[in-house]
């Protein structure tokens, strides 16, 4: 059983919260308050892409009856803002899905502007590679 990610969930939640905070800036400006810096638009797209990728892996894990992989990926998604309900891509073999997802998350990490996001995505990529041993 996987335990002990509480602190990280907070960190990932902060990444997601910062992304969501961007939509409030216009309203904040109207009050005369200077808003906190918005996250990079590219990082917002990267995070959304990662959530879609992980949602696809979760679907593959659930379809192929791999509860351990599903639990691990669900924890990653929880830290990054939740599953993408719109993910409807075809479900590949789980080993392939995990390797592809690790590559995509790594690619998002390499382009990330935020150090926090880069670090979380690098770690998530490594976690997906570890999860191949469970598939």
């Amino acid at each position, binding site marked *: 059983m*996987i*335990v*002990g*990610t*509480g*602190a*990280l969930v907070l*960190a990932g939640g902060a990444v997601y919260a910062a992304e969501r905070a961007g939509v409030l800036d216009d309203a904040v400006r109207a009050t005369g308050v200077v808003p906190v810096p918005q996250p990079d638009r590219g990082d917002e797209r990267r995070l959304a892409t990662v959530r879609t990728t992980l949602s696809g892996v979760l679907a593959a894990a659930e379809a192929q009856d791999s509860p*351990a992989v599903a639990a*691990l*990926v669900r*924890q*990653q998604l929880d*830290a990054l803002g939740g599953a993408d309900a719109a993910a409807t891509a075809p479900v590949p073999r789980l080993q392939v899905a995990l390797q592809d997802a*690790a590559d995509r998350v*790594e690619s998002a*990490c*390499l382009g990330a502007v935020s*150090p*926090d996001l*880069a*670090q*979380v995505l*690098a*770690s*998530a*990529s*490594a*976690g997906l*590679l*570890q*999860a191949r*041993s*469970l598939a």
Partner: protein
Amino acid sequence: MSTTDALEASLAQSQRAVWTYGVLGARLDDPRPDDSFASQRRDRDDLLAALDARGTTPPAPPASYELDVPSDLAAARRLAQQLERDCAEAAAALVRVTSGDERRLAVRLLQRAALRAVAWDAEPRPFPGLDRPDAG
């Protein structure tokens, strides 16, 4: 932490792991110390190259390290998992302060440490390098 400091911190962890796997390899009838030794040497050499590219000469590693030599395979497994956790944490810290090729290296170091940990029977985790098993 500067990028050079983070590279040197990762290098120090890798040098310690190389030395420790050398000790384990001489005492265990198991292929994993040799595999991990080779993989860690690659990490160490990559880090030395990255520091060299920055024009930095890192301090020489100590001649030896304090080590309670494992008395059995279970103890060796725990030691190896701890080594790889330390390497993964150093690599995760390196990711934060790098970009481009140096970040690519940091990600590779983190991935390799995570895979070596699993090879030593560590449980896969959602965020290696960021989440201690005994944390929250």
